[in-house]
């Protein structure tokens, strides 16, 4: 009884607050920011309560309106969504704290609707994670997508065009997804995930089920930006306001990866996705292509945000590779990488936004001497970059380590080569940035000839931006140090038992 209501509150509190933000923000603009923080704070506390409850009691169910599962809509939380929820609400909260100054600078006149839509997007993502009903997932998915389009469109010069391309691609993805629901519904007459996983095994050879599964896979792959279907992603992340890219990049694609795990291993039994049709094998090769292509494309960029966007494509590849390896180690690595990548990419985008805020530039060749100007921010950037490359004790090392172990278990030697090569490629493009920041002589030293070497004054970000960056960077290290506990208490139970 203790925390049972949390599972509903975690969705409804931010949902209702997003309307309150518009109503109250109409009269008092300063009210928006504390309201958003309060709502996400409550959600975060709820998610901690849920995690506690799940670790103690296993899967928890909540029947909406008291209707029993096959008929009513059910909220289900097991270990997998519990840790997704904590991650979502925590990063949402951090980015909300951070967003105050950067939004006031970038889009001052759209403050009230921005906060409302921001909150609505986090609500949508939480909803996708928490619900146990296929069509409900689609509704929350569209809430999250529509708000994401709007959040991206208010960005810089190229943003509307990027947002339009995202609308077209995103709608195709979502349409494929709900067409897939239709095909599964034809043969089973049910929309509840738990019910479907009971009904489907008898129908695995049915053509409609196969078509439905294929449509699910393609739809989610478009939404998560898996390599050949990633074309909307770089522009959208690059031109969005910095707070937007800092929330969409770590969260949106990760939630889609979660949905993929759900559909492959909960809705359909692992036996179907692995043995009956070789979808996981196909996905590993697609993912491997994505890892290499994303890393190489990232090297070619000079714009920091665009580089991070391409690196996201590579990292989606890691997660899908973990799913596709389909053994205990591989999937553990994939799930751990969802968590780690959310933290490190969040930190990196927050820092990129911070540099934009202070210096108004994103070209990495202009970053010279930034370590003197913003030492703490650059330290956070370095930690997250080291984690992206995969250097212990940061979190990124451990998820890659488990992925390599998974590849060894699956006897897929090619993927070990891919993983190691991509780590080297990561090192190339991140060390190029770090070198520019720390080692290259500052630009001002050239400009002032005649020995008047001006010292660069320290000019840190305001505290409301700096603190979230530092907390996230600390999180990257802590996730690495406590990775064994995270696996032993949470992720171990999230991996299907038959692995």
């Amino acid at each position, binding site marked *: 009884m203790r925390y049972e209501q949390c599972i509903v509150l975690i969705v409804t509190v931010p949902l209702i607050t997003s309307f309150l933000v518009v109503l109250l923000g109409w009269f008092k603009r300063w009210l928006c920011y504390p309201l958003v923080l309060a709502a996400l704070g409550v959600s975060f506390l709820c998610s901690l309560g849920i995690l506690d409850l799940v670790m103690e009691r296993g899967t928890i169910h909540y029947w909406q309106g008291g209707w029993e599962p096959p008929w009513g809509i059910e909220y289900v939380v097991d270990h997998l969504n519990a840790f997704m929820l904590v991650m979502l609400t925590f990063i949402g909260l951090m980015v909300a704290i951070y967003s105050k100054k950067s939004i006031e600078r970038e889009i001052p006149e759209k403050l009230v609707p921005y906060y409302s839509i921001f909150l609505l997007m986090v609500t949508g993502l939480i909803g996708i994670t928490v619900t146990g009903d296929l069509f409900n997932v689609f509704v929350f998915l569209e809430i999250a997508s529509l708000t994401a389009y709007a959040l991206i*469109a208010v960005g810089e010069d190229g943003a509307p*065009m990027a947002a339009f391309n995202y609308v077209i691609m995103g709608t195709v993805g979502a349409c494929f997804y709900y067409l897939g629901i*239709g095909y599964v519904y034809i043969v089973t007459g049910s929309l509840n995930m738990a019910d479907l996983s009971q009904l489907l095994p008898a129908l695995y050879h049915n053509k409609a089920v196969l078509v439905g599964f294929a449509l699910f896979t393609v739809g989610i792959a478009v939404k998560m930006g898996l390599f050949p279907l990633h074309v909307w992603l770089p522009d959208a992340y690059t031109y969005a306001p910095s707070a937007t890219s800092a929330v969409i990049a770590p969260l949106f694609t990760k939630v889609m990866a979660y949905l993929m795990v759900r559909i492959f291993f909960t809705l359909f039994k692992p036996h179907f996705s692995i043995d009956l049709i070789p979808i996981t094998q196909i996905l590993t090769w697609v993912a491997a292509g994505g890892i290499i292509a994303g890393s190489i494309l990232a090297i070619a960029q000079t714009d920091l945000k665009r580089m991070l966007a391409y690196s996201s494509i590579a990292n989606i590849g890691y997660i899908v590779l973990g799913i596709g390896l389909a053994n205990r180690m591989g999937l553990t690595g994939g799930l751990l990488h969802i968590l780690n990548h959310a933290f490190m990419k969040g930190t990196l985008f927050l820092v990129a936004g911070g540099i934009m805020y202070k210096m108004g530039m994103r070209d990495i060749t202009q970053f010279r001497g930034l370590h003197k100007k913003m030492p703490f921010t650059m330290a956070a950037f370095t930690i997250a970059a080291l984690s992206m490359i995969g250097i212990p004790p940061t979190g990124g090392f451990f998820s890659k380590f488990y992925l390599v172990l998974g590849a060894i278990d699956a006897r897929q030697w090619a993927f070990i080569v891919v993983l190691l090569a991509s780590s080297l490629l990561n090192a190339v493009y991140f060390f190029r940035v770090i070198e520019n920041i720390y080692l290259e002589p500052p630009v001002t030293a050239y400009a002032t000839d005649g020995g008047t070497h001006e010292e660069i004054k320290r000019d840190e970000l305001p505290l409301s931006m700096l603190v979230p960056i530092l907390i996230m960077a600390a999180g990257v290290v802590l996730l690495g140090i406590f990775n064994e506990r995270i696996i032993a208490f949470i992720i171990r139970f999230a991996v299907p038992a038959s692995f």
Partner: protein
Amino acid sequence: MLEYIISKYNYWVYIFLMMLGLYGMIGKRNLVKKLIGMNIFQVAIILFYISIGSKVGGDIPILTAEDLHGMADPGKYLNPIPHVLMLTAIVVGIATTGVALAIIIMIYNRYKTLAEDEILEIRKETGV
């Protein structure tokens, strides 16, 4: 063969409409036409759902007084769930169209054109 095609004509219609929409999104160079293609794509799927919910000789799924005395016969009624789901999907489709139209207005204000080629040219010249 012909009978096979005719007996499942609803699926052929929806696939034809879907491909038409897909062509509109990929092949057309005008943003509004792309949006119309997207709409056709969505409506095709809505038609698909509605067709799977209907049956020959089916009635509106409302129980009458006689049904309540005996067991209600599900064969007599249309399946309401796909129709209800499509209410939601239609709303989602309208919302998507609205957002896309708002974005198109932003694009028009910025570039003063809606032809994709011209926009790409302007972007190439200005560097963004």
